[in-house]
C-alpha cells in the first residue's frame, strides 16, 4: 500500500501511456513528465510568493497580504491578474526583439533545470547520465538572457544591473560547481538519480545524507551561499538592488514580461534548492528510517519548502553586500574554501572509517574557515567599536 502511494504518479503515467498507440508513446511519455513540471512549479511559485510576503511580514511584525481570499492565500491570483492586465511598455529605443526574447529564454532555461531533478522515487523527467552537468549547463544559460534583458533595454541602470548579475553569476558558479564536485567525487556519478539512491540508506535510524559528513556540511553551506548568489537573492541581490539600481536588469520591463522575470527568479531559486536537496540532503529520501512510509515526493517538497523558508528568513534579515565585497567573498573566501573542501572530501574517501576520520576532516574544514574568516575581518579592519563620551 505504502509502495503504491509512493509510486502513484509513476503508475498513473504508465497506465496512461499504455493507452496510446505505440507510435506516439515516447512523445506522450515525455509530455506526461514535462507537463506536470510546467504546471506544478509555477503553482508552487504562486504559493511561495504569498508565503514569502506573509513570512516577511511576520518577520517585520506585519500581517502581510491578508485581504484576497482566506488569509490572503489568493493574493497571487490578484497579482497575476494585475500583471497580465498591465500595459506592456517597451522603451522606444529598446532592441525590441531581444527585449522580448530575454524573459522567454530566461524562463525556458530555468525550466530546463527541472528535467534532472528527482522529485520522488522513480520520478524524474530525464534520467541523464550527466544530469548534474546538464543542470549547471542550462543554469549558465540564464546569464545570457539576463544580459539580453539588461542590454536590450537601453537603460543605464539595466545595463549596470546586467553587468553585475553576470559578474556575480559567473563568479559564484565556480564555488557552486566546486562544492558539488565533492558530492560527485563521493558518489562517483553525475546522474542525479544515482546520487540520491546512494544517500537513501540508513545506519540505525539515521540517513546516509552527504550533509552529515564534514565535507558534505561545508559543501552544503558553500553550495547554499553560492546558490543564493546564483538566484540573486538577498544578501546577494545586487543585480536588482532596488535602492541602487531601481530594479536592475528588468527595470524596463512591465506587465507580463516583468512577471516572467519574477517567475524565473523563483523558479531558479526552487531548482537550485532542489539541486541542493538532491546533492546533499538525500533528495526524496526520508530523514529518519521509520519515516519512509511517507511518500517520497512529499519529502522532496517538504525539504523544498524548508529551503524556501530559509531563503525568506535570510532575506528578511540581512543587508546587501557591495559589488567588490561580493567578488572578494567569492574569490577570496568561497573559492579557497571550496578547494580545501575538495581535498577534504578526498581525504575522507581514503581514510578508514572511524572517529579519526571525523576529527581530521572536521579540522580540515573548520580551521581554514576560522582562519580565512578572521583574515577577512582583519584585512578589512572590521570590528565592533567603542565610543567615547563628552560631558
Amino acid at each position, binding site marked *: 500500500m505504502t509502495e503504491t502511494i509512493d509510486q502513484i504518479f509513476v503508475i498513473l503515467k504508465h497506465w496512461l501511456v499504455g493507452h496510446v498507440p505505440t507510435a506516439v508513446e515516447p512523445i506522450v511519455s515525455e509530455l506526461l513528465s514535462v507537463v506536470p513540471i510546467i504546471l506544478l512549479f509555477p503553482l508552487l511559485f504562486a504559493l511561495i510568493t504569498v508565503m514569502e510576503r506573509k513570512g516577511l511580514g511576520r518577520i517585520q511584525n506585519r500581517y502581510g497580504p491578508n485581504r484576497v481570499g482566506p488569509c490572503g492565500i489568493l493574493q497571487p491570483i490578484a497579482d497575476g491578474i494585475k500583471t497580465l492586465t498591465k500595459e506592456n511598455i517597451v522603451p522606444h529605443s529598446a*532592441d525590441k526583439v*531581444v527585449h522580448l526574447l530575454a524573459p522567454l529564454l530566461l524562463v525556458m532555461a530555468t525550466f530546463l533545470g527541472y528535467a534532472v531533478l528527482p522529485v520522488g522515487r522513480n520520478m524524474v523527467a530525464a534520467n*541523464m*547520465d*550527466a544530469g548534474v*552537468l*546538464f543542470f*549547471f*549547463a*542550462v*543554469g*549558465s*544559460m540564464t*546569464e*545570457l538572457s539576463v*544580459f*539580453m534583458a539588461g*542590454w536590450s533595454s537601453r537603460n543605464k541602470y539595466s*545595463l549596470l544591473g546586467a*553587468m553585475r548579475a*553576470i559578474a556575480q553569476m*559567473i563568479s559564484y*558558479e565556480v564555488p557552486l560547481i566546486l562544492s558539488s564536485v565533492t558530492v560527485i567525487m563521493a558518489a*562517483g*556519478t*553525475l*546522474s542525479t538519480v544515482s546520487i540520491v539512491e546512494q544517500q537513501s540508506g540508513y545506519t540505525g535510524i539515521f540517513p546516509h545524507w552527504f550533509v552529515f559528513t564534514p565535507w558534505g556540511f561545508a559543501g552544503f553551506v558553500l553550495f547554499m551561499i553560492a546558490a543564493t548568489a546564483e538566484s540573486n537573492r538577498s544578501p546577494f541581490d545586487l543585480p536588482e538592488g532596488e535602492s541602487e539600481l531601481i530594479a536592475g536588469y528588468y527595470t524596463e520591463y512591465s506587465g507580463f514580461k516583468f512577471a516572467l522575470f519574477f517567475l524565473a527568479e523563483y523558479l531558479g531559486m526552487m531548482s537550485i534548492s532542489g539541486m541542493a536537496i538532491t546533492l546533499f540532503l538525500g533528495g526524496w529520501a526520508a530523514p529518519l528510517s521509520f519515516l519512509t512510509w511517507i511518500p517520497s515526493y512529499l519529502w522532496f517538497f517538504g525539504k523544498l519548502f524548508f529551503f524556501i523558508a530559509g531563503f525568506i528568513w535570510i532575506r528578511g534579515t540581512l543587508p546587501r553586500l557591495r559589488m*567588490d565585497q561580493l567578488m572578494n567573498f567569492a574569490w577570496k573566501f568561497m573559492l579557497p574554501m571550496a578547494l580545501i573542501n575538495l581535498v577534504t572530501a578526498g581525504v575522507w574517501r581514503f581514510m578508514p572509517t572511524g572517529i579519526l576520520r571525523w576529527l581530521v576532516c572536521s579540522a580540515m574544514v573548520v580551521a581554514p574557515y576560522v582562519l580565512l574568516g578572521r583574515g577577512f575581518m582583519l584585512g578589512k579592519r572590521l570590528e565592533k567599536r567603542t565610543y567615547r563620551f563628552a560631558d
Partner: protein
Amino acid sequence: MTLPFTIIAALTIAGAVAAMSLRNLVHCVLALTLAFAGLAGMYLLLGAQFVGFAQILVYIGAIAILTVFAILLTRGTEPDAFLDLPSAWVSNSVIVAAVFGVLVWAVHSSPLSRRTLPPPPQITVRQIGFALMDRFVLPLEVIGLLLTAALIGAVILAMHEKQAAK
C-alpha cells in the same frame, strides 16, 4: 532521425551566418549562441551527451558572455563596417568558395561519408572519466596548465596599465 537533424542543422547554419553578417555586434554574439546551441544539439543527436553539455556550459555560459563583456568594454555596440574594398571582397569570396568546394568534394568522394549510423555505443560519463584519468592523463594535465596560464595571462593583459586595482 532526419527531421531533428535538419532543424538543428538549419538553426546552426542560420545562427552562424547571422553571427557573421549582422551589423550589431551584440546581435552577432546572440546569433552565435544560437549556433553553439545548435552544435550542442548535434552532439546530443550523435550520442555525445557529455560533450553536448560541456559545449553549452563553456560556449554559451562562458565564451559568449566573455565576448559580450569584451564588446561592451570596447564600446563595440555601434555597427561595424564590412570590409569595403571590392578587391578584398572578391579574393575573400574566392578563398571561401574554394575551401568550401574542396571540403564538399572531399566529403563526396570519400566512401566513408556514405556510412550509415551504427548502433549507439554505451558510453557513460564514468568511462570518460576513466579515460581522462588513464590514457589521456597527460593531455588533461597540459590542458589544466594551459587554462591556468591563459587565466593568468588574460588577467594580466586586461589589467589596467597604471594601477592593478579593478
